[in-house]
């Protein structure tokens, strides 16, 4: 068992995508001038979303409206909405953050990271573990409840700017570009089904792997530069960013078992719960809680938790799932 775990972790660490992340991180750390131009990085992100949504839609259509789909969706919603309350308490207690920054950071940890999900599902595919295509929809469902929870926690901001900014915020929360592409592609995948998939097979399949490598290279650069520019992180915060994913994943696994989700679905649910948002949540927080310190929440989610999940978390959560599923 432990041997398998070691081998699985090794396989993950040797996956090209993970190695490209490491390359980016090292290049950023050495202050290389390497950068993926931002418009291309943004497009890669949209493209990854498109692939994940589309493939998920095709697979979800193939398997139909199973009860698993419903329980996974409901579980995802609950986890995403509940997590910020616990995370907020922990951040206040151990991280010594002010109220607003703690709420904003909690939103990130309740919400999810698309690329962590992508890496997780690639990992499961590589080791031959099946999971439901609807997990892409669960991913989409988990993006926003955490943001709403954080807003509840922080309380309505009031003040003159409040009224003015509301519509922008709701648009950002529900209609941010990434979410629209993810959900839209899921629906398109479900509609076009196999004929559509055949046409786009290569585009959303073989190409995806390479694009993920390129994007992770960029993530490595951004993460390590972010971390270098963040002197404010105390050990309490770093501890939170490493321990929270573990606890969160464990809770997700337990709940998944209770709901009879499959091994693959449970593993992905753990990955989602453990992951922290770095696209949707920061964008919303910048609008809704502008007094929160972006240096804190971005450094934690992007600089600490993302690498941890990518390098260690994904194989670990799956290994724990295996143990639990016997």
């Amino acid at each position, binding site marked *: 068992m432990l041997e398998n775990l070691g081998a699985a972790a090794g396989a993950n660490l040797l996956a090209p995508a993970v190695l490209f992340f490491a390359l980016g991180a090292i290049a950023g750390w050495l202050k290389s001038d390497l950068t993926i131009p*931002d418009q291309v990085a943004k497009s890669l992100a949209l493209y990854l979303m498109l692939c994940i949504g589309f493939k998920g839609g095709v697979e979800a259509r193939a398997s139909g409206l199973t009860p698993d789909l419903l329980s996974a969706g409901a579980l995802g919603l609950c986890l995403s909405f509940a997590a910020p309350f616990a995370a907020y308490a922990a951040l206040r207690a151990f991280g010594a953050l002010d109220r607003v920054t703690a709420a904003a950071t909690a939103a990130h940890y309740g919400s999810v990271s698309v690329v962590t999900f992508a890496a997780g599902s690639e990992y499961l595919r590589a080791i031959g573990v099946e999971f439901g295509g609807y997990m892409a929809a669960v991913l989409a469902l988990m993006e926003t409840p955490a943001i709403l929870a954080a807003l509840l926690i922080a309380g309505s901001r009031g003040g003159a*700017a409040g009224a003015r900014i509301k519509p922008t915020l709701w648009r950002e929360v529900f209609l941010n570009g990434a979410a629209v592409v993810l959900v839209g592609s899921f629906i398109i995948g479900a509609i076009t089904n196999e004929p559509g998939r055949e046409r786009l097979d290569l585009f959303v399949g073989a190409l995806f792997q390479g694009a993920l490598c390129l994007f992770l290279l960029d*993530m490595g650069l*951004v993460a390590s530069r972010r971390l270098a520019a963040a002197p404010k992180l105390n050990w309490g915060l770093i501890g939170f960013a490493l321990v929270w994913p573990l606890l969160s994943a464990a809770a997700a696994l337990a709940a998944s078992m209770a709901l009879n989700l499959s091994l693959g679905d449970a593993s992905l649910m753990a990955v989602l719960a453990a992951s922290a948002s770095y696209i949707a949540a*920061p964008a919303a927080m910048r*609008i809704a809680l502008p007094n929160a310190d972006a240096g804190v929440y971005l450094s934690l989610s992007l600089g600490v938790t993302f690498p941890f999940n990518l390098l260690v978390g994904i194989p670990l959560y799956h290994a724990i799932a295996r143990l639990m599923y016997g």
Partner: protein
Amino acid sequence: MDLVTRTKLEIFVEAHAVNDLERMLTRVGFKGCSVFEGVEGAGSHGAWRQTGVDEAGMRLIITIGSEASARAALTWLEDYFKSYPGVVAVSEVKVLRAERF
């Protein structure tokens, strides 16, 4: 050639605010504006950089109009900057075809 003095605002704000600002500028009497995208910067809210992954970046809105419009915009901005990051710089410029501004 008739050069007339007008007021130029250079407004640095986050991308999400650009639409609101454009609406406000029209309301207070500006008849045009141009928006540029920054690549990196720093201010009292820390440093940022366009990366395509996490950071939204600042926009520079340049708008030229009457002193009265500028005054109205500054009042709005003064309030806006209480909550949000950003900076505005006011200066005088000379323009052709003053009736357009």
